[in-house]
C-alpha cells in the first residue's frame, strides 16, 4: 500500500495553533461567497438599486421640506454613506447566516470536534465575513463620484478604514446572533426586528439632528451612527458632521472590541447540551 511510508497508529496531528485553522475558515468563507454568483450580484446590486431609487425619490421631498441642511445639498449625496453602511450590514449579516447553515448541514460539527480552540472559529468566521463585507463596501466607493463626492486620498483611506471596522463589528454582531440559532427564519426575524432599525436609526436615511426626543437619544446610543458619521467625515471632509472624526473612530473601535469579545464569549460558553 502507498501508506506504508507512514507509521501506523501514530496520529500525525499536531496542535494546529490559532492561525492555520482560522486562515482555513477565513478562506472558505471567501471561496464559498464567490462561487455563489447570485450572492455576489445581489449584495452589490441591491444597495445600488436602493441608493438610486431612494436617493432620487427622496431628493425632492427633502429639498421642499425645510432649508437645505448643511450635511449635504442633495439627498443622493447624503444617502451615499448610508448606502455603503447598508451594503456592509447586508454582507456581514448574511455571511453569518452561513453559521446556521454550517450547523444544520453538519459542517460545524466536524469543526467543533477538531483539536482547535473555539477562538479560531470566531476569528476565522468573523474575519471571513468582515473581509467580504469590507470588499463590497470598498467596491461601492467607486460610485462616489456619481454621488457628488470629490475627495482626496486621505478621505478615501479614512473611509476604507471605517468600512473595514464597521464590517468587522457587524459580522461579529451577526456571529453573536447566529451562534445560538438553528433556523435561518429566526435569523431573518432578528434582522427585521433589530438590524434594519439599527441601520435606519444610524443617520443613514435621516440625520440625528433632525430627529426629535427619544428617537434622537436612540440614534445617539446606536454605535452604527458613529460609523455612518465617520464615513461622512471621510467622504465630505468640508461639511460639519455630528461628531468629530476622532470620536467616531474611538466609538467604532469600542464597538468592534465589545462585539468581538461578545462573540468569543458565546462560543466559549460551557454547556452540557449537545454542542451542535
Amino acid at each position: 500500500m502507498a501508506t506504508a511510508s507512514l507509521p501506523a497508529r501514530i496520529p500525525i496531528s499536531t496542535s494546529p495553533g490559532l492561525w492555520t485553522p482560522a486562515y482555513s475558515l477565513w478562506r472558505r468563507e471567501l471561496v464559498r461567497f464567490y462561487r455563489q454568483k447570485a450572492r455576489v450580484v445581489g449584495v452589490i446590486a441591491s444597495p445600488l438599486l436602493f441608493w438610486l431609487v431612494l436617493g432620487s425619490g427622496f431628493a425632492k421631498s427633502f429639498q421642499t421640506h425645510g432649508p437645505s441642511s448643511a450635511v449635504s445639498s442633495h439627498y443622493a449625496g447624503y444617502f451615499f454613506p448610508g448606502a455603503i453602511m447598508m451594503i456592509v450590514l447586508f454582507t456581514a449579516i448574511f455571511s453569518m447566516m452561513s453559521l446556521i447553515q454550517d450547523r444544520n448541514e453538519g459542517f460545524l460539527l466536524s469543526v467543533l470536534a477538531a483539536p482547535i480552540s473555539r477562538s479560531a472559529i470566531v476569528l476565522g468566521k468573523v474575519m471571513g465575513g468582515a473581509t467580504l463585507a469590507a470588499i463590497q463596501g470598498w467596491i461601492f466607493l467607486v460610485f462616489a463620484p456619481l454621488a457628488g463626492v470629490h475627495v482626496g486620498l486621505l478621505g478615501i483611506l479614512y473611509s476604507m478604514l471605517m468600512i473595514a471596522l464597521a464590517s468587522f463589528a457587524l459580522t461579529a454582531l451577526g456571529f453573536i446572533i447566529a451562534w445560538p440559532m438553528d433556523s435561518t427564519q429566526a435569523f431573518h426575524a432578528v434582522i427585521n426586528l433589530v438590524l434594519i432599525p439599527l441601520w435606519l436609526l444610524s443617520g443613514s436615511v435621516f440625520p440625528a439632528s433632525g430627529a426629535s426626543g427619544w428617537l434622537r437619544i436612540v440614534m445617539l446610543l446606536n454605535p452604527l451612527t458613529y460609523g455612518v458619521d465617520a464615513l461622512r467625515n471621510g467622504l465630505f471632509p468640508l461639511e460639519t458632521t455630528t461628531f468629530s472624526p476622532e470620536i467616531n473612530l474611538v466609538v467604532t473601535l469600542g464597538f468592534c472590541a465589545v462585539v468581538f469579545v461578545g462573540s468569543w464569549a458565546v462560543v466559549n460558553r460551557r454547556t452540557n447540551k449537545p454542542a451542535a
Partner: protein
Amino acid sequence: MATGQQTLQQTAQSSHMSAGNSASSGQAPIELDRLTHDYGSRLALDGLSFDVRPAQIFGLLGPNGSGKTTLFRILSTLMVPTSGHARIAGFDVAKEPNRVRQQTGIVFQASSLDVKLTVAENLMHQGHLYGLRGPQLQARAKEVLARVGLTNRAKDMVETLSGGQKRRVELAKGLIHSPSVLLLDEPSTGLDPGARIDLWNYLRILRDDQGVTVLVTTHLMEEAEHCDRLAILSAGKLVALGSPAELKAEIGGDVVQFETCGPEAAAALGARIAERFAVAPSVVGNAVRVEREHGHRFLTEVVEAFPGAIESVSVSKPSLEDVFIQRTGHRFWLEKNEEKS
C-alpha cells in the same frame, strides 16, 4: 440470564482495573468507566463500563434512544458526561479533549462536508484543522483519497457526488490526520448495499493494515454481525458485551417462537408454557419466545399441549436480535418484580 450478568460484571471490573493504570502502555484505545450522562431528568447513559481492544472493529448496537448517540457525542468530545470517565488512547475526553481529538477520526452520521467546496478543498480544510499544512497535507490528502478510491474526483464539487461517494469523502476526511481510533456514527445510513460492502471492506483494511481501532454505532443487527466485538445498549445500560458469536452462543440451542393473536394471549400462553415446561419464556408483543435445545421437539410438545392458542410457530438459530430480546426482556421482568415487592 444469570451467567450473562456475571460476565458483564467481570468485564466491568477488569475495565476499572485497566483504567487505573491507563498511564502505562498497552492500555485499551477506548475505555469507559462508570460513564453516566443525563439530560436533566432523563438518564441517557447509566454507568457504562467497558473497554475496546486495539485494532478491532467494535460495534455499539442499540435501538433508537438506547444512548448510543449520547455516547458517540461524548467520545467525539462534543459533550461532557455528567459523571464517570471515558478515555481514548489514555486521555480523558472531558479533561483533555484536544489530545483526544488528535488521536481520533470522526465520521458523523449526517454529512459534514461543505458541498460548495471540491473534494480536495474539503480535505485540505480538515487537515488545517488538525495542524497539517503544506506538502505534507497535500501528500496526505492524495493518499486518503486514493484509499477510498476517489482520486479522479478530487477537483469535483462535493455536491456533484453520489451518496456513497460522499460517505467515502467523509471517511477520507476522518482519516486525514492518521488517527489511531476511528469513530463512525451509523455509517451505513443512506448507503446502497454495494456501498455498504465497500465501506466495511475499507474498515477492515484500516484495522488490518494500519492497526486502527474502529468504533461503529448501529441499530442494524446485520451490521453488528460484522464487528469483532459488540456492546449492546438498551435504555442507557450495557446489556451485553462480547463477540457476536459469543453472544449468540450464550443463548444456546434454538430460538422457538410462538405467534398468538394478541399481547394478552401471548402473556397467557407464556405463563402456561413456563408452568408446564419449567422454562423462562419471554413475551415480545404477540409472540412468546423460548430458548431451548432441540427446538423442533419442544415446538411439537408445546403445540400439542396448547392447541388453538398458537397462530404460527418458528424455530431458528439465535441471532443478535434474540440476544437483545433475551437480555432486555429479562430486565423488564426484573423491574416488574421490584415494583411488586
